[in-house]
């Protein structure tokens, strides 16, 4: 029997695979796309570590900044562990060959990002995620790590709350496959894709792993916390990295006035932009004064993206921007060992997990750090807890899933075009469950979402070919995001306060007495349950 099944082949998945293999376990990485296509490739700005190569820094300062930004919703122990491990994490990546930029005295270069008290983000131009991911991929090939691409996660295989692997739809053949393993690591990424059309995320950020945990009886938490990145291109929602502001870029309105300290945490800056827009102002990023040479050296990707998607040249023109959904702080609820709440032999790591590091608002540069540092931890812990002997079980999960998929090919009249609904829902999530929230609107949207869920029988797939059916994958992803969207909206409704990325005009303050809590959700007897769990220092 396979020791460790890793679902998801981004930075977190590949890191945990490398670590688990190094510790002697047999590993298999399974993903719905090619590893190098994962969301990690889109991370631009940098990865935090208090190396102090440019400006004085300390682990304590990194911890303090992270806790401050988390608005008292993080787990101090986890934050401390992460920040302490950050310098080692950079060392590890360096050893693998990640080409970080350097200072003129051959140290790893570091830049300023929002909410940081020092120049702390190590970077490789504005391709940091890309270069880390590809180096991890090359190392996986070197270490002979088996990777299966184009397997779409359907369900976890469980026996009395113990996870024993998962079922997948082989996208190429259309067959349902089962992979059993002693331990499973979920590293499937976030869910901001539900804000379709208003997100920097890729098409596949539909929270498939998180939805599978819910269906298997595990718990998720803090799903109401979605980070809005202040600067995405206005017409395409393409990300323009925070490093643009870190390097000295300004935010200006139509009158050319600056209206916010650009280096405050993302939640504050996003709200300031939204408030300008509410007044009828357009908002622009201005990086012209940084000069052509600096821009082409430090932000070659940003320059290209502006020219291509916004048809502006950032060297000479203002960049029209808007804040869009960018990162899921909430996710699969895990303990200090990254074990999933409510299930055994199952770990979650990276954006799909809620390791209580980012709390109510993530700091730029901490997500790449989390996927590598916690990726290593997940790999290690999954090896440590391996049972010496374990036998495959007889499970009917594959059969059930097979029947469900076959049903999709037979039934479903396709009376309603789910693509149109998906776009409409994305827009409504942005408007009503976005930067500024209101209970009436959240409630209406939740009701609407439930109607859509109950109407799935009138949607389904129009493409009836079994092999390479992307219409089917789109539909399965849509269903996952509906399941997640329901939790997101419900938890946003419950939290009658404003904290970090979650902001309600009617409740503008942090209400520690009632809401310094993690909102936990799970499904029991087919009903969504929730509980508010107090954060203890």
């Amino acid at each position, binding site marked *: 029997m396979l020791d460790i099944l890793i679902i998801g082949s981004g930075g977190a998945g590949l890191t945990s695979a490398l670590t688990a293999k190094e510790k002697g376990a047999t590993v298999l990485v399974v993903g719905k*796309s*090619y590893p*190098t*296509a*994962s*969301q990690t*490739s*889109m991370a631009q700005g940098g990865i935090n570590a208090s190396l102090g190569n440019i400006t004085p820094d300390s682990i304590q300062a990194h911890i303090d900044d992270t806790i401050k930004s988390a608005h008292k919703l993080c787990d101090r122990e986890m934050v401390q562990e992460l920040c302490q491990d950050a310098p080692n994490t950079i060392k590890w990546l*360096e*050893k*693998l*060959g990640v*080409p*970080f*930029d*350097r*200072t*003129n005295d*051959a140290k790893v*270069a570091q830049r300023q990002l929002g909410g940081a008290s020092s120049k702390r983000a190590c970077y*490789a*131009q504005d*391709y940091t995620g*890309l*270069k880390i991911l*590809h180096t991890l991929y*090359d*190392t996986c*090939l*070197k270490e002979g790590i088996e990777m299966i*691409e184009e397997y779409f996660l359907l369900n976890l295989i469980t026996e009395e709350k113990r996870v024993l692997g998962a079922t997948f739809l082989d996208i*190429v053949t259309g067959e349902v496959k089962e992979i059993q393993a002693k331990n499973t690591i979920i590293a499937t990424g976030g869910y901001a894709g539900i804000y379709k059309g208003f997100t920097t995320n*890729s*098409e*596949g950020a539909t929270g498939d792993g998180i939805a599978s945990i819910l269906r298997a009886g595990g718990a998720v938490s803090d799903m109401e916390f979605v980070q809005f990145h202040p600067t995405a291109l206005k017409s*395409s929602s*393409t*990300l323009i990295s925070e490093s643009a502001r870190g390097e000295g870029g300004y935010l200006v309105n139509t009158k050319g006035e600056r209206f916010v300290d650009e280096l405050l945490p993302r939640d504050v800056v996003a709200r300031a932009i939204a408030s300008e827009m509410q007044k009828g102002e357009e908002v622009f990023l201005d990086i012209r004064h940084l000069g052509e040479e600096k821009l082409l050296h430090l932000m070659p*990707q940003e320059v*290209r*993206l502006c020219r*291509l*998607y916004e*048809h502006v040249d950032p060297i000479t023109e203002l960049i029209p921007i808007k804040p869009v959904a960018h990162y899921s702080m909430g996710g699969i609820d895990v303990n200090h060992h990254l074990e999933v709440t409510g299930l055994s032999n199952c770990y979650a790591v990276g954006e799909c997990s809620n390791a209580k590091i980012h709390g109510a608002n993530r700091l730029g540069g901490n997500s790449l750090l989390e996927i590598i540092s916690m990726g290593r931890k997940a790999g290690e812990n999954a090896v440590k807890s391996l049972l010496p002997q374990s036998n495959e079980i007889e499970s009917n999960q594959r059969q059930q899933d097979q029947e469900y998929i076959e049903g999709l090919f037979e039934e479903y009249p396709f009376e309603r*075009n789910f*693509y*149109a609904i998906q776009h409409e829902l994305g827009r409504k999530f942005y408007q009503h469950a976005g930067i500024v929230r209101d209970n009436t609107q959240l409630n209406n949207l939740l009701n609407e979402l439930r109607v859509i869920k109950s109407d799935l029988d009138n949607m389904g*797939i*129009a*493409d009836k*070919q079994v*092999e*390479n*059916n*992307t*219409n089917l994958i789109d539909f399965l992803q849509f269903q996952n995001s509906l399941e997640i969207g329901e939790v997101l909206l419900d938890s946003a409704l419950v939290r009658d306060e404003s904290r970090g990325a979650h902001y309600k005009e009617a409740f503008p303050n942090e209400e520690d007495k009632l809401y310094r809590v993690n909102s936990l959700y799970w499904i029991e007897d087919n009903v969504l349950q929730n509980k508010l769990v107090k954060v203890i220092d």
Partner: protein
Amino acid sequence: MQRELTIAINRGKKITHFSVPEEKTTLLKALYYIKEHTDKSLTFSSSCRSGICGTCAVRVNGKEVLACSYTFEEDDLIEPLAYHEIQRDLKVNKQRVRETLKSSKAWLQKSQEIQVTEEQVAVTEKQTDCILCDSCYSSCPVLEVNPDFIGPFALTRAYRYIADPREGNIKGIIDNIQSNGIWDCTLCGNCTEVCPQGINPKMDITLLRGTSSQFGYSDPNFQVMDFNFGGGF
């Protein structure tokens, strides 16, 4: 009513023409428009929408582009990448082509702890921008005659590691790119022309030839010529 224009998609058995709204936007958006409104069976691959994940490369009028980064025009002919197994419409199997990374062992062979300077990082700054979109591979005419050719992206990656000061075993890479590798390239430069990241595999291959010479390797084609003519004088 919004004006429309027509693009053609090679779907294997036939070329299908589709009408899409005329606007200055990406080919990927047009493909999604077709899938969501006209024909839900149209099959293509995509992910990030911003030119960084390498998923959506196709050929337009015979030239490789990223669908998410190309602005389409009337009568464009869209086809899947060449030298890849076509799975359906524009979706191809990249698995077999990725094997070239394994056969060339294009990774850090032996990591040595050494100080890396600003200038040394700059040497491979472009090469490490590679997004593995396979455009270069699809454009390479050598693959027409030699399907076992390692191809441009794996060779660029090999160069990226031999030029990294942390590499403690350059020969470990050089040895693996001799057969079906650097000497098979015709230096036509197609790969350089189509790379969406502005990488120059042709130059990297030339540099790899130079390093190979330092390890005692030489152009086998030249040796053959030398054999034919060498004895006569």
